[in-house]
């Protein structure tokens, strides 16, 4: 049978352990218990039908995949998934698409045209930027992008 050495009845201690296990089972650890707090998109597990995707597509954690996403999606990831690998990949994809992050305004800028002025300290011209409060792209003419606010860490 499945019990080649014969059954052995559980000791008092083992029965106690089993009871404690049973009690703990009613409040098993939640996936978010061992993660950093997700301010905007907390985990919210719920039963999903089997014919829906239960898992994201393979290789969706590569920069190549992120480069196929729309810029709005990338901005969403950047602002709403703070401090995650997704945020890092989104930033990388945005940089590859010539978006530059402004550390004072905390917004992404893209040159709309060649800057009218370029010095060692700044450049000036017309830029497209993404306004996270109005949630949309805006154009700014005659904007001075000071290089000291340019986030220029080399994302590996």
């Amino acid at each position, binding site marked *: 049978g*499945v019990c080649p*050495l014969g*059954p052995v009845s559980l000791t008092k201690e083992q029965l106690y352990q089993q009871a404690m*296990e049973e009690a703990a*089972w009613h*409040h098993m650890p939640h996936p*978010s*218990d061992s993660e950093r707090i997700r301010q905007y998109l*907390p985990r919210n597990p719920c039963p999903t039908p089997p014919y829906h995707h239960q898992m994201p597509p393979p290789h969706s954690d590569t920069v190549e995949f992120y480069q196929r996403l729309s810029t709005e999606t990338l901005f969403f990831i950047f602002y709403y998934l703070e401090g995650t690998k997704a945020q890092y990949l989104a930033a990388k994809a945005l940089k590859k698409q010539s978006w530059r992050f402004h550390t004072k305004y*905390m917004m992404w800028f893209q040159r709309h045209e060649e800057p009218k002025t370029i010095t060692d300290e700044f450049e000036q011209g017309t830029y497209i930027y993404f306004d996270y409060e109005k949630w949309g792209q805006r154009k700014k003419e005659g904007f001075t992008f000071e290089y000291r606010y340019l986030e220029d860490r080399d994302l590996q």
Partner: protein
Amino acid sequence: MEVVRSNYEAMIDRAHGGPNFMMHSGISQASEYDDPPGLREKAEYLLREWVNLYHSAAAGRDSTKAFSAFVGQVELLERKMHQQGILKTDDLITRFFRLCTEMCVEISYRAQAEQQHNPAANPTMIRAKCYHNLDAFVRLIALLVKHSGEATNTVTKINLLNKDHDVRQSEFQQLPYHRIFIMLLLELNAPEHNAGTYATAEGVAAVYLLQMKPGWPMYAQLLIDLFKYLAPFLRNVELTKPMQILYKGTLRVLLVLLHDFPEFLCDYHYGFCDVIPPNCIQLRNLILSAFPRNMRLPDPFTPNLKVDMLSEINIAPRILTNFTGVMPPQFKKDLDSYLKTRSPVTFLSDLRSRYLFLNAIANQLRYPNSHTHYFSCTMLYLFAEANTEAIQEQITRVLLERLIVNRPHPWGLLITFIELIKNPAFKFWNHEFVHCAPEIEKLFQSVAQCCMGQKQAQQVMEGTGASTIKGEFGSFSSSSSSSGS
């Protein structure tokens, strides 16, 4: 067998004196505390202050600004702690941490109670409330660890966990402790800290321990503890739902280890197999299937595979358990004598110990190495030279029951079984137990066809192809008889 076991346990306990001893002693002792008057109020004030500072600094999107503010706040808090006299002695620091932990735990319990009394409350918000305090506290510990090495006393915290469990029993909530350990682990794991603080993290998400080799013995001990805990329940095969979930989780951890750290499972397989009950075939197969990543295993179903021609077959595997020390001298003498002379047969007469004995041999049938080869030959030799059919039936049973479960199957196990049914020298198909039940017979046939092909299998099973096939497998069978004598 019982003597061997108790000797072994004593040895294991001695061998793991260092950090593992700390780990266990911390759990076993708990004492009452008598804090100086007013300390609780001071700690409460400081903790609340800190939680607010932590979250106000972390708010705002400007991380660089937050960081400098943060450093200032740590200094501010330290100054306050000095003012309150908390940092005066190690004892006070320890008490401070204990009180803070208690308060965080209290907050978690209150949040959970709120959830129960008001089911309409948003569970996500309830959790966020717990995390809010716990994360702040963890950061405080991490920062103070950085400032003074002595500040955290693991033993105290573990004691607290144990005490809480004893008092609350089935009402015990693991959330606050769980989060404190994991988050502290993440905090301390950041590259700028030193690796020695791993010990604080305890076993919770300790796969981290495996990333550095000095962590291996401790992680092995944690796994042994898990197996030991599961053993009595698994052995009886009466699994409650929670146990099933725990078992599934254990399988998952083992799968991860098999995939990412096969060398770890290789090195400690002996100690693990020792605590896993014999009926847990799959659990053990996962451990025995591990092999060093640089090794290529020949397909056991390759026709004409000459096992003794493999270069790896002369290399001994590494065993990190001192298993010879386990055996009492007299037992070892009897065993040696039996292995040499195959007598007295009473050594094997007890059915139960023979089952354990054969399992102990089968536990060595792993990737190509000298032990696998030796024990494969031993098993086959014991089959060939058995004086009763009962022994042969039991050998078949031990091999078969490890093969009828789902994958993975250890390489050496497959090799041994295939040799047994393929090599006519063993007259496997002439035995009654092979034909005892139609489903068993079918099973044997499908294995035979799988490894030999339809026609050859037919010949072997009918005993007609013996003379033609014999030469092909001669090399293996001759080596099996020479190593057995």
